[in-house]
Each structure stands twice: as structure tokens, then as C-alpha cells.
């Protein structure tokens, strides 16, 4: 068991050293039933699963979910998929919105119709 954890840790360390600059940072700020998720970097095919995992355990009891994209540079369909799945979840338990979206990401939201399906500022 320890061996497995060690291998996992070493693998993550190597990934971080190799790809460090490409990782995405996720910061969460929770205030009772309101959760703000701040993303930094890129939400792409390699980083979207990380966000997906993180959200799986974070949304219980949350009625107000805010994604702050102020430091997010880029999004691809993998990221859109995670956001859509999250929107469907939040539609059942509260509200979700995305703020501080840059021009590039806004265009992606616009082209895909996400701008009509989500609350985006």
C-alpha cells in the first residue's frame, strides 16, 4: 500500500516538474451554502478531469455556485462538458454563474450556445 502511494506521489511530482506550467490551479472559497471556485491556467482535455474530480465532492449542500474565470486563459470542449454537467447538477439544487470571463472564452461560450444555457458575466 505504501509502495503504491509512493509511486503515485513520484508520478505526480514528475508530472508537475514536466508540465508544471500547464497545470490548472483550483481555489475554493466557501461561505455556508455559497461556493466560489477560482480557476487559473487552462481548462483543457488534460486539466478538466481534475476539476470534475474536485467538484464531485464539493457541491453537497451548495445552493450558490460561482466560477471566477479571472485567471483562466483558455477553455476547450472538455471544460465545457464539465461545466454543463455541473450546471445540470446545480439546476436541481440552486444556481450557478460564471464571472470574469475573457474574450476568447466568451466567444467559445457564444459559439456553442452556452451563453444562453448558463449565467455568464
Amino acid at each position, binding site marked *: 500500500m505504501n509502495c503504491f502511494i509512493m509511486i503515485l506521489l513520484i508520478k505526480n511530482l514528475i508530472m508537475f516538474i514536466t508540465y508544471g506550467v500547464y497545470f490548472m490551479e483550483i481555489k475554493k472559497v466557501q461561505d455556508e451554502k455559497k461556493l466560489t471556485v477560482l480557476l487559473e491556467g487552462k481548462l*483543457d482535455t488534460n486539466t478538466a478531469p481534475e476539476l470534475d474530480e474536485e467538484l464531485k465532492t464539493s457541491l453537497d449542500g451548495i445552493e450558490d455556485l460561482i466560477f471566477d474565470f479571472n485567471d483562466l486563459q*483558455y477553455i476547450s470542449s472538455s471544460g465545457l462538458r464539465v461545466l*454543463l454537467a455541473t450546471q*445540470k447538477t446545480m439546476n436541481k439544487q440552486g444556481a450557478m454563474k460564471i464571472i470574469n470571463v475573457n474574450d476568447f472564452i466568451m466567444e467559445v461560450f457564444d459559439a456553442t*450556445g452556452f451563453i444562453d444555457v448558463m449565467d455568464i458575466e
Partner: protein
Amino acid sequence: MENVTINSDLLELDNIFDKLDFLLSEYDYNPKLVMQLKLAVEEIFTNICNYAYDDKDGMVVLSLETNPSPLSITIKFEDHGSYFNPLDISNPDTNLTAEEREIGGLGIFLVKKNVDEIQYENIDGKNVLTIKKHLI
């Protein structure tokens, strides 16, 4: 023209982007257009990695060619996996509500929206997808 042969592994994506950055470094380009290009490249490469070779790895040959004036780039993706013409896929209905929206189908749609030209050919059993985009 630069040819790159890589494994159908999503982690190679950043290597492809590095190659692109290097190729374009000597030119003046519109950064937003390059970001759109990278989005298209990611979506195409992701599809190849996920679908072309089932669960096995396979090689993907990329060729990148810049045309200097006005600045544009042509990128060709070649794989020898199962037949897949992304242009066969119909666009998602962007008017549906969140509940009605399908989770998938967005990748190719974003490619089409972000390149100027796109063409598919099946040559000797290989999938060959060519995109072209102006970068000024």
C-alpha cells in the same frame, strides 16, 4: 513544412503546442487567432486519441506548414485508425436548454467554428484531416 510523428496520447498535446509556438515565433500573429487554432488542434487531437485506435496507442503524423504572406498555417493530421470523418458529425443544437443539451458533440463543432478551411480525405486507409487558418 514540419512533420511530427507522435503517439496518440493526450499528454502529447502540450508538445504539439510547443512546436506550434516555436514555428510561429518568428512571425507577427494575432494571439487570439492562435488561441483559436490551438483549440481546434486540441479538439482534433483529442478525438484521434480517444477514438482512432480504440484502447490501443497508435501513431499520429502531423504536418505543419506556415504560409508567410499573409500569415496562415496549414496543419494535416494523419492516423491509420478506424475510419473517422469528423465532418460527418452533425452540429449540436445550440438552442437547447441545459437539461436537453447533450454532453458530447462539441469538439468538432468548435473545430469548424475556429478554422477557415477544413478537409477530410481517406488515403490508403488513413484518415487525413487538413485544416487551414489565417493568423493575422
